[in-house]
């Protein structure tokens, strides 16, 4: 590998990530490397440029191992609806899961019991979770980084909107998308954030302020903190297990001297509907460029331009994508625009204001669950359609995207079934340092167990902390 070669030649590391293996979700453009978004529309599409975030990682010396699987065009919460098939959660093959969840019948292959990673950045979460790399890039529009992070037992960071460049990230919802960072520990996330954050002239929605990379303190005092527990996040369908874990976490902070109070984000319950209108509208717009003319799949249909477009888009997109395009176009029709799109924008403002009020009243960090339950088996997941699943699973993560706030999911404990459960922290805009500091403290307290994959032989488990971190400098 040339990077390694350079290292030896100059005797200096290229950057903080020199030699670190990384994986990148397949909706980021990578020069000379196929970028598919797990869709037939872009199968075989070789991107001519690197996304800014990819370039930044490579500039720091990171080694790209590969592109990871996702739901087609990042639409989904299970990483099950891409053309390359579903992503399997590595924890399905862990000793912890196998011990707790005996196979349905001994004759049946354990293949049928495997659980989903969550989505849509399932491939990236699985890659980090199974030790194939230290860092993976995901994207987060409604929870797509935090959800799989929680299900796969890794750290999933959604930065503040506008902090990290979206240039080269194939968009789902331009006004909500952010590149997400998946790592094994919070310190690593801070390092990667330091390499990625900052103004990009190629992305007009990034803020101009200079970003100062930070290191997280090792000794953290939470006594001055005020932790908010939003009562609306006790959502219908929240498993009693996770509810208990959430409560335990709150107690952890209380016992350490932090102020823990219940708060209210009254418009939370409208966020899913609001999201669906705004998301589908932007999807309808963003997908309009896929017509088979300049790049990507082109149908073998020459009767007319229109018929070529129609065939190309029918062949190139799966049902989920096409469904969202249809809905989105409906909401954008002149007669519907006011009642749907404008209305949704107003509701979005209300949701964002909920956070402004709460954060303005002295709350530093919000503590919530990330998901309603642990990862479900694939066979069960696919019983409901994508839209239903998304609506259910996004409820706890979606509002942070609406408001553009930073949020992080930290692996907290194993469920009864031996699968990871994560809890989420939501912070003030552009206050990633505070957010990650609190997250790091929490991570230290819970001491989440390492996945025990038979295929991967590990040394003494008690030194896992040292091994997980890449900060050897």
């Amino acid at each position, binding site marked *: 590998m040339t990077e390694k070669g350079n290292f030896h030649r100059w005797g200096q590391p290229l950057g903080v990530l020199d030699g670190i293996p990384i994986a990148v979700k397949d909706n*980021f*453009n990578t020069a000379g490397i196929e*970028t598919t*978004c797990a869709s037939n529309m*872009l199968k075989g599409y070789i*991107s*001519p*440029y690197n*996304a800014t975030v990819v370039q930044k990682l490579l500039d720091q010396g990171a080694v790209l191992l590969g592109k990871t699987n996702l739901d087609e065009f990042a639409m989904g919460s299970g990483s099950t609806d891409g053309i390359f098939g579903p992503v399997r959660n590595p924890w399905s093959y862990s000793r912890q899961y196998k011990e707790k969840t005996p196979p349905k019948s001994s004759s049946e292959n354990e293949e049928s019991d495997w659980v989903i990673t969550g989505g849509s950045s399932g491939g990236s979460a699985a890659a980090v979770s199974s030790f194939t790399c230290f860092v993976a890039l995901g994207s987060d529009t409604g929870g797509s980084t935090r959800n799989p992070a929680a299900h796969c037992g890794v750290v999933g960071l959604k930065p503040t909107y506008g902090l990290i460049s*979206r*240039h*080269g*990230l*194939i*968009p789902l*919802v*331009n*006004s909500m998308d952010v590149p997400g960072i998946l790592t094994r520990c919070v310190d690593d996330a801070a390092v990667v954030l330091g390499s990625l954050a900052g103004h990009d*002239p*190629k*992305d*007009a*929605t990034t803020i101009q302020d200079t970003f100062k990379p930070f290191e997280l303190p090792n000794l953290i005092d939470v006594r001055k903190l005020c932790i908010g527990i939003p009562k609306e996040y006790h959502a219908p369908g929240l498993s009693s297990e996770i509810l208990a874990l959430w409560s335990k976490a709150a107690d952890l902070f209380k016992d350490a001297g932090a102020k823990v109070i219940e708060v209210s984000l009254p418009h939370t319950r409208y966020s899913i509907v609001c999201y669906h209108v705004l998301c589908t*509208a*932007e999807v*309808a*717009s963003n*997908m*309009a*460029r*896929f*017509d088979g*003319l*300049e*790049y990507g799949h082109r149908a073998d249909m*020459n009767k007319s*331009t*229109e018929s070529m*477009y129609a065939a190309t888009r029918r062949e190139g997109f799966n049902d989920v994508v096409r469904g969202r395009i249809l809905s989105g*176009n409906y909401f*954008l*029709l*002149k007669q519907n*625009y006011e009642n749907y*799109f404008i209305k949704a924008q107003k509701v979005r403002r209300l949701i964002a204001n909920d956070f402004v009020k709460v954060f303005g009243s002295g709350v530093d960090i919000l503590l919530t669950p990330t998901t309603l339950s642990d990862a479900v088996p694939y066979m069960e997941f696919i019983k409901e359609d994508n839209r239903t699943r998304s609506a259910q699973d996004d409820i706890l993560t979606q509002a942070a995207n609406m408001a553009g706030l930073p949020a992080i999911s930290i692996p907290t404990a194993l469920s009864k079934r031996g699968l990871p459960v994560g809890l989420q922290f939501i912070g003030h805009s552009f206050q990633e340092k505070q957010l990650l500091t609190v997250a790091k403290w929490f991570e230290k307290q819970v001491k989440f167990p390492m996945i025990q994959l038979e295929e991967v032989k590990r040394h003494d488990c008690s030194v896992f902390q040292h091994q997980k971190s890449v900060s050897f400098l």
Partner: protein
Amino acid sequence: FCTRGSSAPEGAKQGSRACARPATGHRGTAPRGLASWVPVVGLEIHVQISSNSKLFSGSQVQFAAPPNSLVSFFDASLPGTLPVLNRRCVEAAVMTGLALNCSINKKSLFDRKHYFYADLPAGYQITQQRVPIAVNGSLSYSLCIDNKMSQMVTKTVRIKQIQLEQDSGKSLHDDARSQTLVDLNRAGVGLMEVVTEPDMCCGEEAAAAVRELQLILQTLGSSQAIMAEGQLRVDANVSVHHPGEPYGVRTEVKNINSVRFLAKAVDYEIQRQIEELENGGTILNETRSFDSKLGCTIPMRDKEGKQDYRFMPEPNLPPLILYDAKSLPVNMNHQQVVNIDWIRERLPDLPSVKRAKLVELYGILPEHSFTLLNEDGLAEYFENVIKQTQMKPKKVIGWILNDLLSYLKQHALTVKDSPVSSFLLADLLNLLERREISSSAAKQVLEELWKGEGKTPLKIVKEKKLELIQDQKELEQICQSVMAIKVGNQKVLNKLIGLVQRATRGRSNPVLVKQILEKKLSE
């Protein structure tokens, strides 16, 4: 279909006569009668901004480059690319807005306008539908009444708004091979769409307004506005109604490739609508294409039913914020913002101001100033000649407009390409002014100069022996030999003077000749 030539039916004739009648702002009131119609004309003018790169990407702007050689990833709509606003385009729009007396919106927004077409790679155009960059302006232009340049009237058309938007690519239909070829060089080039209120009433007004707009844009440098190169494209909205009644259904006329065709297209469409309505028909709210060969408008099949463009805010571009001297934050870097007042202070003299100055400074007629400005470089040429000659401007202008300009037109040359430089012409005019030659001799010299052989006027005069004969004795001899009849009648005197002039090939001093002849005749 299209059977009509260019003859106008009764009603339209009245309409156009009414149009030329001096009336400030409101349309002419036609005399009551069989066909009293009020035509209503509004324009949508797409102006290509003169800039090095495109509105939202860094690829170059250049006319007639090899196909698809000026296309960036963003222009080709490659997934993941984002728009970044070009500062120069914003400045061009502000300049144009100020020149057209608009209010500049300190905050304006960008939107996506969706439709599928081969020359629109993203499936949407980025434009300004909700809040454009400039609104509520006016454009003043002048018309000659009854084609007499000596009677000019000033009219004004209100400018509804100016918006920034992307140009589309070009699709070329190859019917022979049943294929469409797409060239994206033009895709993403910055446009200013100038929308007028329907304040005009005929083709002549529309053409004059557009001509004046062209001059303004060229003066500002915000666009070269050459229609032949697609830098200025005009769509006309036309309707007719009876005075006092509500406006009629309007049609949109596209595919107009020159100012001259604009006048024709508008007038044709007015006539067509009047005839249609007078025959009991109705006007459809449709888009029509102007066929320049046949001189008529034809319905365009493409638009079936009304398109819903599903406008949506452009999420990748924050609102465009402009500043003025008052609102400019103290520590803001001047390079990072667009300051409306800064631009206003640096606006060049607009054509109307330039014309007024020419009239005042040089005492020429208003219609002369129009001609001077209408021809690229002619005003500068004129002023250069003035600087280098003692001849009065009122006399110089005649040489410029009658002699030089007609030569240029005859040979289809621009002022820039004139073989006769302002220096040479001034030199010639000086000879004339010093009475070293007569004016008819000067014309002969000019003809010679036009050959562009590099000779000076003086040289030509010497070569052709065109010097004015001042010598009394010499002239007396000539007069003697020319005089045939001894009569005391003025007519004959003039004839004799003419004969002497002919004999001397215009070199004789006419004043002296007259004296000599009179003397001779009275002897």
